[in-house]
């Protein structure tokens, strides 16, 4: 790692004002620290969000589930509120990375990084979640812009994510055999405003699969999506999977996500 300074503020405003031009927020650090270790990235200062109590915690109120940005994956996975409101979200969190990563990694860090193979973006987009920052609220679809790119401005940090509670939802992931990130992950949600299907891992950023949404809108069953193809032309292709195979896996995982949703 290159040298850097470190600050550990105790409040959101303090954190935002501490951040300089070549600085970064440090959430769980499960992606940022490896990147710094390999000298793939350089910062002047890390502003550690770990001591900010107001960024942690899970709350359920009426039709909404809210998760603080610094809530760890393991906390989400074990939360009774999550299990009762959106069990698919708890199950997704329980399968991010490995046990040690889940003990440190956070929802805010994950979505702010927008790794194309991360799990959470699929859940946020499919569930129609809202990302709250220290400045504003952004719909999930607007939040995830492109490969490792979000709508966040430089001194903006995610404070929490709110999820409308769906009628039902399911997530199915085909992990990359080596990294265990999602090679393809499909999150399916049946909500008051219709069915939404979001795909992660397959493209440069999370995207919705509208043909599947339409098909599931009229018939919420695995058979309804297993035959629907996704155009492979915009999909990722690498040593682990070709775009064609990813396209095929979207259909398979979508069907399995529907089955998981019950």
């Amino acid at each position, binding site marked *: 790692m290159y*040298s850097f300074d470190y600050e550990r503020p105790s409040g959101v405003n303090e954190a935002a004002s501490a951040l300089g031009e070549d600085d970064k927020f440090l959430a769980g650090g499960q992606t940022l620290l490896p990147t710094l270790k390999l*000298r793939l990235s350089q910062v002047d200062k890390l502003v550690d969000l770990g001591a900010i109590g107001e960024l942690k915690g899970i709350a359920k109120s009426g039709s909404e589930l809210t998760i603080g940005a610094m809530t760890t994956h393991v906390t989400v996975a074990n939360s009774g509120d999550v299990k009762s409101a959106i069990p698919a979200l708890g199950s997704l969190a329980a399968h991010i990375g490995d046990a040690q990563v889940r003990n440190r990694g956070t929802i805010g860090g994950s979505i702010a990084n927008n790794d194309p193979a991360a799990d959470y973006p699929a859940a946020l987009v499919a569930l129609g979640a809202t990302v709250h920052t220290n400045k504003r609220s952004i719909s999930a679809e607007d939040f995830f812009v492109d490969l490792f790119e979000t709508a966040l401005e430089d001194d903006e940090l995610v404070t929490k994510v709110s999820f409308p509670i769906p009628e039902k939802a399911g997530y199915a992931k085909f992990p990359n*055999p*080596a990294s265990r990130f999602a090679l393809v992950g499909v999150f399916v949600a049946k909500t008051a405003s219709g069915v939404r299907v979001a795909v992660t891992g397959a493209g440069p950023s999370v995207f919705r699969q509208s043909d599947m949404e339409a098909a599931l809108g009229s018939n919420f069953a695995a058979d309804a999506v297993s035959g629907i193809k996704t155009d492979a032309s915009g999909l990722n292709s690498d*040593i*682990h999977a070709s775009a064609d*195979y990813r396209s095929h896996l979207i259909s398979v995982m979508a069907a399995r996500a529907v089955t998981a949703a019950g």
Partner: protein
Amino acid sequence: MSVENGIGAPVRRKEDQRFITGNGHYLDDMNKVGQAYGYFLRSPHAFAKIKGIDLNAAKAAPGVVDIFTGQDMVADGIGGLICGWGITSKDGTPHKAPPHNSLAVDAVRHVGDQVAFVVAETLQQAKDAAELIEVDYEPLTPVTNIAKALAPGAPQIHEEAPGNLCFDWELGDKAATDTAFAKAAHVTKLDLVNNRLSPNPMEPRAALGDYDAGTGELTLYTTSQNPHVARLIMSAFLAIAPENKLRVVAPDVGGGFGSKIFVYAEETTTIWAAKKVNRPVKWTSDRSEAFLTDAHGRDHVTHAELATDADGKILGFKVSTKANMGAYLSTFASAVPTYLYGTLLSGQYKIPSIYCEVQAGFTNTTAVDAYRGAGRPEATYVVERIMDTAARDLNMDPTEFRLKNFIPSDAYPYETPVIMTYDAGDYATAMNMAKDMIDYSGFTARKAKSEANGKLRGIGSAAYIEACGIAPSAAVGSLGAGVGLWESAEVRFNPTGSVTVFTGSHSHGQGHETTFAQIISDKLGVDINSVEVVHGDTDKVPFGMGTYGSRSLAVGGSAIVKAVDKIVEKSKKIAAHLMEASVEDIEHEHGVFSVAGTDKKLTMGEIAFAAYVPHNYPADLEPGMAENAFYDPLNFTFPAGTHIAEVEIDPATGVVEIVDWAAADDFGNIINPMIVEGQVHGGVAQGIGQALLEGVQYDEESGQLLTGSYMDYCMPRADNLPSFRIATTNTPCPSNPLGVKGCGEAGAIAAPAALMNAIVNAIGRDIDMPATPEKVWRAINTH
């Protein structure tokens, strides 16, 4: 009478206490006063000329002690790295061994090639300074694929090796094989790729060099499987220091699997630099460097043909292989695709004629050398995949086809057409045992059940043989080895009856501290906790050839037995004197010496004490109780057995699940069955890794390594593997005093073929390793 914790007992390992409490001493745990840190600047190019290196800015960076380039080492008279096994091509010419400097001099030939060595006060400062080194590269077009490297018009990597050819070697009788094929009723043909692997012991390599300006002695602490061999090569070929001034210590080493046999540029540079800067210098590889520089394994492309008669009896076997050596010839690289490969192509079968030819060539990739099994997994893969393919062609059950062609158990010693003499074996017993273990006959019903659930199911076997316990020095010398492959041991009693055993073998996970102590305990009646096994230090151990090729027990253990024999012989003389009997009347069992026909007896401890306090002692006998032995084996040992894999495949995704695994191995006599089982588990896991998950990949255009971390190189995790059913048969090895065979590599040799045969059985098509989900899915869905 048997001995507690003796031969055959599943003794819990003595070494474990320190490992489970965090008190092991691996290399990176060591530090020396005044130590500086070394860091290698590595080539970002697969192939480039070095036109100039500007160190000025880097040398001025904070904390820099010094920076060295290849020119500095050459100017200091330091020689290049060597390959210690000479191979002769068909045309009688020796293999091409282009120069291999520890630090590149005029060109870099693979991504990660060493360009400069920065020594600084801290590792961070060394890395910072390395970024300031300016290297003027002229990039050249690289070639990474062996078939392309050997094709006309390929980029020329070394001027000493025209056409990138290292050697073009053959074994067997071509004319006889051609005649056999002319008479064949069936010829089965198969093309195979044996995928390139990265060994990945969990402890990365490391080196700590220490120079004593007063005595002129250099000490290299290093992660080595064979410290004496490292010292020999560094002394004799690199001229780093004479052997008497060079000490090499390999402390606790965290796995090797072959990759820590070799003498690498990093270790030689570190010890040399320690003298140059007159300070201890430590270098520790990170995992990214390990992927770029630890010698890889396998990487063969093979065409094979098997001729059978109308009754399904094998008539002849032809194999043609292209082997990728990487950018430079590593320490034993040339032996792997030749004498460790071609010589095993008879498998467990009576094959009247065999012909094998191997072309080995250079590419712009990391060097390839021995990795767990080294040549023998490649041979087994060819033999056992074509056995299944032929059985399919002949409409025979693959196990029946094998049983029909096995060398019968009364045919030993059996001389194969590829210069091996198998000394003992009983292949049918092992195969039938494995079939029983996995309920082979019940497979059809299980397959039907899987199909009812929308899954494919397959079963596949591999009947492997390996030649290990390497090796008789005269035999390997005649085949080109530059060293003898004996082993040494010293058994030293202390006056109070405890024992220190010095062995030239090196343990990096194999449990020698326990297994060797069991031999002493059994033979000399010493409590196992009173036996200390010392290894891995050229200043302590008389000499040693190290641990690889499943040789430690068969060769190193036999050396210990020879030393024990000398201890017993001497003890009998002392016992006879003390008990006033003739030596001929002294009987010995498990450390108790008695006078035949009387109740007079003395224990080993009493005799050892008498030897060190010789107040009442034979006049013509030296005092003391310590004996040395060097043991040169009479033959290889030939472990063999059958592994059967059963898989279930999800046709929707191509995911292969291993649902069952049965292994019946013949390792001869067994000292510690618990350790032997562990060795089989680990070997099978690595073999499964090769077949299902692992594969080094390069970008063919740029020569960049695409699988340079665990993000992309798929290591077997716990959830990739099943629990294994393991059993053993026993035909004692007649060629060594313990009757033992090697067990460390067997699993890695048997597993790839067994698993691929099971997958091919399930999907009905041939595919190459690794059987990734996409590859399997495509095979299922391509008609």
